[in-house]
């Protein structure tokens, strides 16, 4: 199978440019072409402009700004020949069949015989796209439907035709899976494929039901969001996010393409309110607002929402429905709740989940594809069939009947059963034949979730578990709330180190939470501080230092495998691993100063060491600690694993996994790779500048204070950070040990922990989830 190396994206709009950016993130060169506008001075101006926008966009489409250099801008008139070097050509131009078809003709004339060509269309069937295509191109043609933003959305819908070769599908799938980190969902050639077909039906239904049943947009979002396991944007705020103006276009093409008896078509009603909002320029967050807006009139920012009855903006009203407060697993309670949220939830879910059931086998081969598409394409926590299982398939079918609604065929097949079941230690799903089949993972994927079903933990306490993931490797999993670090975890680390040393070869620190760890358990710390349990607090600081040091100097390799946030203590544990195998979407930082503390589980010590040993950084006692001060005092958080390397949170030998599903397998393989001839690192020694560095830090912070960039209490916290990083009372002629630096960390931490300014910051963080600027 010829590997995909060079990629081209044609169409430098938001999607095309975003896809190109992500190919560049994967380390591959990518050509980005667009048309030559009439009378353009710069014939490749559109693509160049798109790259400039990529560098400014938030959330960043590029995992490191330097990746932009891998994107070569061009135009389809002058640079078409360059396509002959490309292994995969992605078309992402305007949704017009004639334009696409004429472009395919041009591509066909220059492409390599085995180059794969795919369209990112979201609405046009493959059958139409390939209608005028040469036979050889048809063999290498498919639809690859990315979701916006392409770097962050993990779903890739793939549609292949009868003539598409298995090799073309396999090559694109392998590249998209391993290099772009996408989860491939195979779809049939049906309008809107899976996620948008169902997702847009769901949004349209919810908007209509909210209007019919007299809910406010805030109430509708509160009910359709969290209690259903859906992001808190619900439906109205989701529309604002994706852009209201997209809606009529996509809905229109769906209405044209779907059979007239499809519930999408029969349930459709024109929505004058949306039309008016768009006409008035309220296209969503990218414009001046949508269903929600920030009203800046009169100098103040007032959050406003649209009144669905009057169509006028009014100040936002917080939803107070009881039903909106239910947890996602209480779905039956939600849809039977007596308040208007309950009835709304019922109508929306009844219609949406029924529609989902009708998509199998029409648009998807199995329920697994539909669930995966909604989880990864719409960020639902649970897929529609998982939601039905929560209520019970029979209960749901009965409720539909009671409400006078049709019961979908698949739901009848599920009678007396559930859509998913656990058989032995495997998850099985209900097929359209009424049988169960194993839910298979892509080849090479190891999920802790699967391992855990088949075995008991090797070690376990209230906050962590240790699992045998095979081949002599153990996996240390945080299980505490939000994966926050506490004394139980630290205790279990010490035990685990002894166990691995005795019976195993290597350790991986990994979990499948949405965040690796947001740091130490601040709630416990605040409680201890409020009752003045200073010895206990100091004890946990010391235990953490010991536990992390034990990991670092254990006689076996330890590989950290983070995804999502790795902050504070969560960052520090990774700094003590031999190596890190990080998911690209890892956001790591030492953020302790934000809560009025300093890193005291070895974070200062490790960062100084890394910057001291960085051959690219200037020599001298001040340069490394100066950099560490800059990073820690500003609570810098890297916005990708790649960016984390520039701060030295990760080192050159640390590796990046693009596909979240492959993280554990990669980490385990890395750990095993390190086993042979493994030697624990040697202890570092430190030559720190002492008091003059402290003075230099003080001068810098005072300057920021005058500029208004540092608060009064920032000066206090930075002063203590300076006391650690400077080496305290040391002199540059003296040598300090790791333990000396740990003691400085501990002392500074304890001095800060006793201050009211720190406690105010901790309390604020716990209550509001953001730092207090005191």
């Amino acid at each position, binding site marked *: 199978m010829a590997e995909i190396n060079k990629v081209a994206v044609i169409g430098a709009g938001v999607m095309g440019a975003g896809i190109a950016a992500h190919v560049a993130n994967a380390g591959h060169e990518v050509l980005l072409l667009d048309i030559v506008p009439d009378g353009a001075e710069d014939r490749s101006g559109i693509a160049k402009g798109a790259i400039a926008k990529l560098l400014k966009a938030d959330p960043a489409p590029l995992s490191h700004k330097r990746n932009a250099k891998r994107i070569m801008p061009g135009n389809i008139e002058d640079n078409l020949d360059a396509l002959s070097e490309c292994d995969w050509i992605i078309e992402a131009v305007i949704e017009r069949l004639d334009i696409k078809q004429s472009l395919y003709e041009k591509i066909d004339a220059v492409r390599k015989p085995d180059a794969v060509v795919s369209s990112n269309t979201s609405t046009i069937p493959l059958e139409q796209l390939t209608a005028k295509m040469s036979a050889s191109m048809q063999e290498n043609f498919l639809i690859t439907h990315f979701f916006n933003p392409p770097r962050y959305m993990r779903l890739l819908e793939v549609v292949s035709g009868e003539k598409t070769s298995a090799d073309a599908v396999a090559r694109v799938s392998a590249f998209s899976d391993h290099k772009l980190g996408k989860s491939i969902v195979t779809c049939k050639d049906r309008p809107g494929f899976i996620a948008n077909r169902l997702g847009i039906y769901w949004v349209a239904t919810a908007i209509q039901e909210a209007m019919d049943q007299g809910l406010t947009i805030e109430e509708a979002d509160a009910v359709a969001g969290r209690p259903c396991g859906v992001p808190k944007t619900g439906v109205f705020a989701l529309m604002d996010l994706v852009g209201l103006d997209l809606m009529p276009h996509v809905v229109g093409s769906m209405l044209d393409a779907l059979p007239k008896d499809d519930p999408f078509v029969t349930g459709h009603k024109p929505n004058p309110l949306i039309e008016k909002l768009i006409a008035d320029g309220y296209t969503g967050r990218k414009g001046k607002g949508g269903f929600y807006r920030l009203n800046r009139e009169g100098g103040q920012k007032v959050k406003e929402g649209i009144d669905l009855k009057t169509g006028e903006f009014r100040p936002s009203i917080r939803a107070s429905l009881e039903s909106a407060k239910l947890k996602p697993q209480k779905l039956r309670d939600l849809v039977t709740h007596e308040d208007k949220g309950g009835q709304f939830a019922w109508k929306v879910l009844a219609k949406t989940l029924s529609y989902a059931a009708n998509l199998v086998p029409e648009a998807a081969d199995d329920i697994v594809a539909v669930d995966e598409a909604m989880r990864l394409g719409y960020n639902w926590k649970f897929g529609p069939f998982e939601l039905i299982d929560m209520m019970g398939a029979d209960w749901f079918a009965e409720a539909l009947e009671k409400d006078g609604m049709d019961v979908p065929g698949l739901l009848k097949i599920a009678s007396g059963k559930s859509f998913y079941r656990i058989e032995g230690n495997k998850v099985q799903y209900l097929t359209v034949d009424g049988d169960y089949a194993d839910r298979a993972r892509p080849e090479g994927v190891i999920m802790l979730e699967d391992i855990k079903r088949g075995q008991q933990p090797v070690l376990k306490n209230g906050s962590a578990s240790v699992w045998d993931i095979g081949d002599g490797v153990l996996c240390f999993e945080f299980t505490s709330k939000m994966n926050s670090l506490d004394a139980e975890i630290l205790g279990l680390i010490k035990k685990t180190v002894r166990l691995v040393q005795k019976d195993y070869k290597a350790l991986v620190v990994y979990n499948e939470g949405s965040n690796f760890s947001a740091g130490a358990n601040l709630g416990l710390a605040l409680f201890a501080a409020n009752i003045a349990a200073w010895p206990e607090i100091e004890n946990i600081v010391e235990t953490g230092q010991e536990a992390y040091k034990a990991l670092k100097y254990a006689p076996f390799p330890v590989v950290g495998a983070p995804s999502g946030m790795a902050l504070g203590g969560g960052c520090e544990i990774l700094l003590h691993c031999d190596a890190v195998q990080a998911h690209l979407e890892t956001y790591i930082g030492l953020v302790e100063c934000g809560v009025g503390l300093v890193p005291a589980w070895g974070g200062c010590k490790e960062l100084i060491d890394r910057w001291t040993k960085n051959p690219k950084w200037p020599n001298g006692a*001040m340069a490394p600690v100066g950099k560490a001060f800059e990073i820690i005092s500003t609570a810098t958080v890297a916005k990708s694993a790649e960016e984390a390397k520039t701060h030295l949170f990760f080192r050159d030998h640390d590796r990046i996994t693009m596909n979240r599903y492959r993280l554990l397998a990669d980490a385990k393989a890395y750990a095993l790779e390190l086993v042979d001839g493994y030697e624990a690192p040697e202890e570092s020694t430190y030559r720190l500048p002492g008091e*003059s560095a402290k003075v230099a830090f003080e001068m810098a912070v005072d300057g920021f204070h005058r500029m208004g960039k540092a608060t009064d209490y920032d000066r206090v916290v930075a002063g203590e950070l300076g006391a650690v990083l400077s080496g305290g009372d040391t002199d540059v002629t003296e040598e300090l040990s790791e333990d000396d630096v740990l003691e400085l960390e501990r002392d500074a931490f304890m001095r800060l922990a006793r201050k009211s300014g720190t406690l105010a910051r901790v309390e604020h963080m716990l209550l509001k989830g953001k730092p207090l600027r005191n």
Partner: protein
Amino acid sequence: MRNVVIAGYARSPFHFAKKGDLAKVRPDELAAQVVKSLVERTGVNPDDLEDLILGCAFPEGEQGLNMARLVAFLADLPQSIGGVTVNRFCGSSMQSIHQAAGAIQLNAGEAFICAGVESMSRVPMMGFNPLPHPGLYKSNPNAYIGMGDTAENVADKYGISRKAMEEFAVASHQKAAKAQADGKLKPEIVTIEGVEADGCIRGDASMEGLADLKPAFNENGSVTAGTSSPLTDGASAVLVCSEDYADKHGLDKIARIKSVAVSGCAPEVMGIGPVGASKKALERAGIKAADLDVVELNEAFASQALACISDLGLDQGKINLDGGAIALGHPLGATGARIVGKAASLLKREGGKYALASQCIGGGQGIATILEAI
């Protein structure tokens, strides 16, 4: 006493640090290219040169070791020529001119290259390892005061309004942009790695645009990035020799050095440094401020430039005719040689008898040079 003359002036384009076109050029290389070009342009016989005196405000990293000697090697100067790196912060390369003038009058050489360089992209202000003396910081914190804070202090002390500073900045950009458009900067500029022109000048700078900027150093202050000189990469050099030598070898005498001075002042208002130094130099030259026809007054900040103008009683119409550092940029170590070379060239171009070049220096100093037309 022997007369000392400026017999040549050249500089690199000046560009914004980090984001400008010279960010990737090493400072030693930058200085060497300017020095090499100056030697070629003036036609001085390199074997006659006594010394290369190179000013630099943060002589470490790529600006470290004895950079002057390394620049001499890079510029292919004969091995027989010495090299010394001098540091008087922003006054460094004016100091190199003063040293050469002194040496010539001491009969310790006939011709000197006096140069200056700063890559603020590659060696940050404060250097890589700032290690202040803790005791001094305690007893006299102003010894280490930041430059922006001194600019605020001067604005306060001398009652310079934000608007006045902004008018001054806009004028600086307009003068520089016009000079650039009229090709008046071109003769002094040496092309470096294909970069031919200055990169900091903003001819479209406006009062409205400047008014929108936030204070850069103090949230309650009045000094902004727009009324401060930008962080800049650049190098400059002048040929300083005895008048006899210039005559003998038919070199182009641009101006004669009439007098020089340095003078200390309070570090917290270092921007006022040119006042003391200029007064001394004027007295040594036996002339009054009113006798000056051309003034190059470094614009570290608009506030300090305005305060000096007012205190010395200078004529605004004679100051920084082709724009100053706010528009052109201020590569610390390179500025002194630039403004002396520029003042000499302007005196020749515009006519008149006397010119003053003066600048303020971090830590609380001023330095001044008075030139006389030939």
